[in-house]
């Protein structure tokens, strides 16, 4: 789990980790953290290293860790069984149901149906991966390489080439240098995450280790969420995610309606879940959280508080 960094960088990275998890971490501190990340590649590597270890730690079921490492969890926690975690935190917002327009991308070159992922090698050697219900086009000529994301989400490993690569989303075009990217089309913006290399839009760069909303220009640049690309490996990784948001994410991979009642919407959930078996994830929810999964029809599923 450990990699070699200078003690000084290690100390700073740990400082930022603990601060960023603090209850009073605000906009100003967030900016300071970004500055620190930007200052030095070593900082970014150390930060990414911590995130990776954390991802691994969160993939381990908590009661098993506590029991095995003989630091017994509290009675309350022991009751909150197995693979998932719950922490009730109040802040009610409605369940964001995704809208989806059946028309765009019908004629797209590449399409990945609901619940499936596809991986394609493009003629320039770049690798394009499409997440569930996604569509994209590729047009390459002697002058440039053009990609278009019609809907959904793509991961792109851009091969280096003399021609620039332009990616078009609903909001406009961005330029991608060779590197690794994740781009997801939302309603009104797309979310661009840079794992390697750099992206630029309207003359402004977005660097490795950053992500931003793209609306024709970058909006709200933040440090990269390392869980963003987990779908490529067939995983949904949640870290303290609201149950409502978790179900909305999971719903992208399933047919029909998946939601929850307001009473349980703010329960928190963490862990890594295999996307290819969403039924099993729903079963796990009932074990881990004080909820029951109610099925009105096969395609209409609601998560409600457990009774009694």
């Amino acid at each position, binding site marked *: *789990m*450990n*990699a070699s*960094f200078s*003690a000084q960088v*290690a*100390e700073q*990275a*740990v*400082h930022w*980790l*603990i601060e960023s*998890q*603090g*209850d009073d971490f605000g906009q100003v501190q967030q900016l300071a953290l970004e500055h620190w990340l930007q200052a030095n590649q070593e900082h970014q590597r150390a930060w990414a*290293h*911590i995130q990776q*270890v*954390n991802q*691994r*730690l*969160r*993939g*381990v*079921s*908590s*009661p*098993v*860790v*506590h*029991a*095995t*490492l*003989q*630091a017994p*969890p*509290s009675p309350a*926690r022991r009751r909150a*069984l*197995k*693979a998932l*975690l719950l*922490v009730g935190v109040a802040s009610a917002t409605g369940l964001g149901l995704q809208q989806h327009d059946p028309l765009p991308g019908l004629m797209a070159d590449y399409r990945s149906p609901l619940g499936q992922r596809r991986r394609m090698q493009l003629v320039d050697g770049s690798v394009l991966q499409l997440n569930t219900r996604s569509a994209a086009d590729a047009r390459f000529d002697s002058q440039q390489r053009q990609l278009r994301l019609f809907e959904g989400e793509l991961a792109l490993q851009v091969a280096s080439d003399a021609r620039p690569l332009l990616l078009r989303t609903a909001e406009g075009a961005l330029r991608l240098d060779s590197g690794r990217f994740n781009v997801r089309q939302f309603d009104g913006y797309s979310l661009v995450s840079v794992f390697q290399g750099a992206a630029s839009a309207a003359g402004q760069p977005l660097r490795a280790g950053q992500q931003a909303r793209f609306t024709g220009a970058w909006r709200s640049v933040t440090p990269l969420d390392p869980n963003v690309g987990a779908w490529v490996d067939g995983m949904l990784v949640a*870290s*303290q995610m609201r149950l409502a948001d978790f179900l909305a994410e999971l719903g992208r991979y399933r047919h029909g309606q998946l939601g929850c009642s307001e009473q349980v919407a703010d329960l*928190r959930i*963490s862990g890594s879940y295999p996307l290819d078996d969403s039924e*099993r994830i729903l*079963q*796990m929810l009932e*074990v881990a959280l004080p909820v029951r999964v109610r099925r009105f029809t096969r395609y209409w599923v609601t998560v409600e508080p457990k009774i009694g």
Partner: protein
Amino acid sequence: MPSALSSTVEGLYHAHHNWLTSWLRRRLGCPQSAADLAQDTYLRLLQARETPQLIEPRAFLATVAKRVLCNHFRRQELERAYLQALAQIPEEVAPSEEQKAIIFETLLELDRLLDGLPPLVKRAFLLAQVDGLGQGEIARELGISLATVKRYLSKAAMRCYFAL
């Protein structure tokens, strides 16, 4: 036995293998694991950059073997606790055999990295990074101040992420 030969791992192996195996067997009561652990002991010597010039090769071997034995017992202890914890998980949501093995390796590594830290420090760290509890919640759960929580988390984090 010329000392030049006995200070190589090969020399140590030839000269003291039987002795080491029976030394381990006495402490384990199991010939099979004694042979395995003897191998582990030599493996550890091979991985070390150089074997020091030895005046008392058996005392040296015993020191290394004790460490191997310690790890072995700790691993067994963890394995027992792990299997017990797993047994409480309903079968239909239990991890696959492969996942179990991966999780156990993570636990072993975590245990090794956090070894020697005070129980409260460990606990605070696990609550934060495995359970994802907020620092305020951890302070309440453990009955310590927020500043102490941060200090504990930093201490454990230096160990866990950077082995420092």
